[in-house]
């Protein structure tokens, strides 16, 4: 699934480690989501949306692959 995680993170000048710490996941998980290798669970997607103050569909695009 495509997502805007990298762009949103860059806009806020956050590193993957910063975001991982806030989401309470490993940096590997943030990287795997960013690169489209792993689709997060619904609870984690909601946490991501909460961190960025956006709706889930503003971060993830279900129509695209990777």
């Amino acid at each position, binding site marked *: 699934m495509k997502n805007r995680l990298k762009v949103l993170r860059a806009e806020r000048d956050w590193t993957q480690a910063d975001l991982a710490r806030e989401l309470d996941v490993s940096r590997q*998980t943030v990287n795997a989501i960013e690169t489209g290798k792993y689709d997060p669970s619904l609870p984690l997607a909601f946490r991501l949306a909460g961190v960025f103050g956006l709706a889930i569909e503003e971060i993830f695009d279900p129509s695209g692959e990777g």
Partner: protein
Amino acid sequence: MSFSLKKSCSSPQGSRWNELRVAALILIWTGSWLLVKIGIVEDVLVSGWPLWAAITASGGLGLLAVWAYLKHLGGLDELRRKIEMDALALAFGVGMVTGLTSSLLGDAGVLPWDEMVSYLFTVMFVTYSVGVIVGHRRYA
């Protein structure tokens, strides 16, 4: 950055501590299993309460290792848990196929079944380890 930093069971430090605890308990358990096995083979543990106490203690340590692993699994984040679960599923499947195939070979008299049971643990452990490595590389 404006948001607060959190610390929980899935923090790298907590995860590392859980990993070390699991590794230590598995090492202690396999060591105890080996000692009991040697004791039985060398006729040191022949029968009676010492034999049963040794087997029970080794089994208890094994259950403790299982408990520690489950705690470790619960402390992982969802991607690392998926990697672990995929590796466990692979090891279980390979173990089942290897075990049942070995039993057929044992029944046919091609291979000694008693010796193959010991190798089954090694096959499952190696498969699990390969599964974890492949999983981490896949999501790296």
